[in-house]
């Protein structure tokens, strides 16, 4: 068991590619940290530096409060699950799982016992004699997990271990991995670019973009208090709707001018955000989560000054709710390099609302949309940072 600390970790590949830029993180003993970000943002590189598989350009990696920069992988007491699984193709499942123990010259009887135990946990008992080539994707994934947990290391590193599985298996393995981690209580750094994995598995989520850490926080806080427009648009599906807008009036009676629409902003919003009052009169970026938008027909008591007039262009009905697309005439705030995989945004300026199942709206209708104005997100128009 150990905590992991990254201090100003930087990696520059030959050719001046800065894959990881000044990354500082503290991962507590036994914590499950999810490292998430779009493809190519340096997640794997960060993990490889922690694992000792990639030389560190600058900064420090500490495991159990000890600087391990100069340690070989084998001296860092870590186990890693690779995206490709990296099972040894010429060895049986048993030998794959047992390899690290054989290398460590653990007595045969104990190896057999421990492999048996791991195989039972992962339901691999029937496959121990097989070669990895004769296993299904899910079974291979479990062998890769088995190889990691048999070591009883102080730190688990997992690089997108589920990305090669089909959707159903992924859901199942997601909860299995989280359960195994809770049971063995080993510090875990889990890399993914899947925001569902990020939100559901970890104690905390660290979000990276272009090698730079954007925010580290609990999944709830990442979702409800995104530090900037990138985090806001990356987490959540469909993405947060982001528009350029302006605040007018004064704190007690403030109005948000969103294109041709005007929304009343409750004073409570300013109470939570000290700097927001100073932005009255200036351009800002406003963010509306799809679930904070609702068919006004379902909320007859919703204040009249917190509604948008909208013309529905598309209604994707999911049964449990409706994804309703309608244009808003305010300029869309572009988030550079947005790479949310579950992105559904179809056209510029189109806003998506998640309406309740009982909503009867149809494409082509003109409707009123109720906006939960106390749940809006505000960002600086120039920097994209949350206000």
């Amino acid at each position, binding site marked *: 068991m150990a905590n992991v600390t990254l201090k100003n970790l930087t990696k520059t590949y030959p050719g001046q590619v800065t894959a990881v830029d000044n990354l500082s993180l503290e991962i507590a003993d036994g914590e499950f940290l999810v490292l998430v970000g779009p493809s190519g943002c340096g997640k794997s590189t960060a993990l490889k530096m922690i*694992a000792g598989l990639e030389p560190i350009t600058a900064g420090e990696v500490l495991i159990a409060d000890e600087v391990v920069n100069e340690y070989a992988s084998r001296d860092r007491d870590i186990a890693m699950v690779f995206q490709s699984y990296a099972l040894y193709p010429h060895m049986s499942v048993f030998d794959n799982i047992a390899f690290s123990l054989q290398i460590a010259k653990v007595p045969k009887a104990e190896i057999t016992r421990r492999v048996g135990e791991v195989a039972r946990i992962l339901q691999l008992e029937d496959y121990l004699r097989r070669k990895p080539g004769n296993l299904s994707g899910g079974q291979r994934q479990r062998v890769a997990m088995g190889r990691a947990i048999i070591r009883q290391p102080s730190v688990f590193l997992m690089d997108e271990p589920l990305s090669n599985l089909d959707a159903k298996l992924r859901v199942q393995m997601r909860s299995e991995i989280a359960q195994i981690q809770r049971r063995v209580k080993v510090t875990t750094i889990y890399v993914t670019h899947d925001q569902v994995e990020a939100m559901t598995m970890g104690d905390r989520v660290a979000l990276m973009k272009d090698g730079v850490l954007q925010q580290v926080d609990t999944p709830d806080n990442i979702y409800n208090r995104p530090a900037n427009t990138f985090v806001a648009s990356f987490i959540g599906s469909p993405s947060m709707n982001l528009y350029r807008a302006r605040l007018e009036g004064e704190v007690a009676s403030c109005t948000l001018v969103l294109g041709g629409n005007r929304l009343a902003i409750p004073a409570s919003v300013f109470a939570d955000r000290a700097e927001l009052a100073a932005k009255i009169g200036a351009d800002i970026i406003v963010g509306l989560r799809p679930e904070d938008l609702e068919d006004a027909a379902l909320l007859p008591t919703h204040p009249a000054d917190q509604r948008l007039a909208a013309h529905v262009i598309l209604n994707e009905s999911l049964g449990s709710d409706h994804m309703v697309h309608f244009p808003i005439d305010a300029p869309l705030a572009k988030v550079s390099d947005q790479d949310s995989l579950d992105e559904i945004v179809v056209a510029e300026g189109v806003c998506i609302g998640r309406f309740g199942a009982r909503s009867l709206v149809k494409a082509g209708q003109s409707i009123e949309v109720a906006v939960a104005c106390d749940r809006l997100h505000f960002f600086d128009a120039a920097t994209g940072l949350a206000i």
Partner: protein
Amino acid sequence: MTALSLADRRRRGAKAVRTRLFVGIARSLFLAILSLMVLVPIAYMVLASFKTVPDFFGNPYGLPGTWAWDNYSRAWRDAHISITLPNTIIVTAVSVFGSTLLAALIAYGISRKEKPFAMGLYTFFVAGLLVPVNMIVLPLFILIKWLGLFGTLMALIFPYIALGLPLGVLILGPVAATLPRDLISAAQVDGATEWQIFRRIVLPLMKPGLISVAILNGVWMWNEFFIPLIVAFKPESQTMPVGIVSFVGAYSTEWGLVFASVVVSTAPILFAYLLMTRQFQSGLTAGAVKG
């Protein structure tokens, strides 16, 4: 119309059958000729090895008049096969093992690309293919003399290992380059040292390439003539190819004995081929196809 096209189709079908038949016959004929080209000299060699000298000259192509079995026992003694056969086996085995292992180490090391000069090293080793033995034989002679290796099998083993490297690196380089990087990383994380990674992961995965290198190098090392001719004067340190030739003309040439020796020197390779036809073929194509 259907009837017409049916008949048409039948006619076409018959034509296809005839074409296929013709191709089949042509192919069989071609392969038969090729087989004869290989088998006739072998048969001639085996028959000649049982002939006495008069028989050999009087009846070069027929069966032996009397089967001179003692050609073999005499070759064993007089042509020093009893010494040169073990010599050849030792030299070939050690050289094949040494050059294959070294080539694997070099190819794997280069494939890790951790040093900027890795690619240059590959070129350097493979360029060795362009150096003819005749060109290096004089410096080799001096070097071996300086090392005091004359009269020992080492005088052959060292040059053979070195000469086996270019081909070995040429074949194993691409094989090593296709080893998945993650496998090496996984073994590192699993606690393996570099040597353990090489022994337990890299070597087993390169096996088809290793077999092909061993075969290609083994055949020429077994038959190599020039270097032992220059550096091995006495039967004690000679291999069969030179041993046989030095026997020719030492007295009036005993062709029966010569051919008996040749049979003994050819048999192991033929035998190995018959035993491992599959490995030979897959080994020879390994490394040709990526991945």
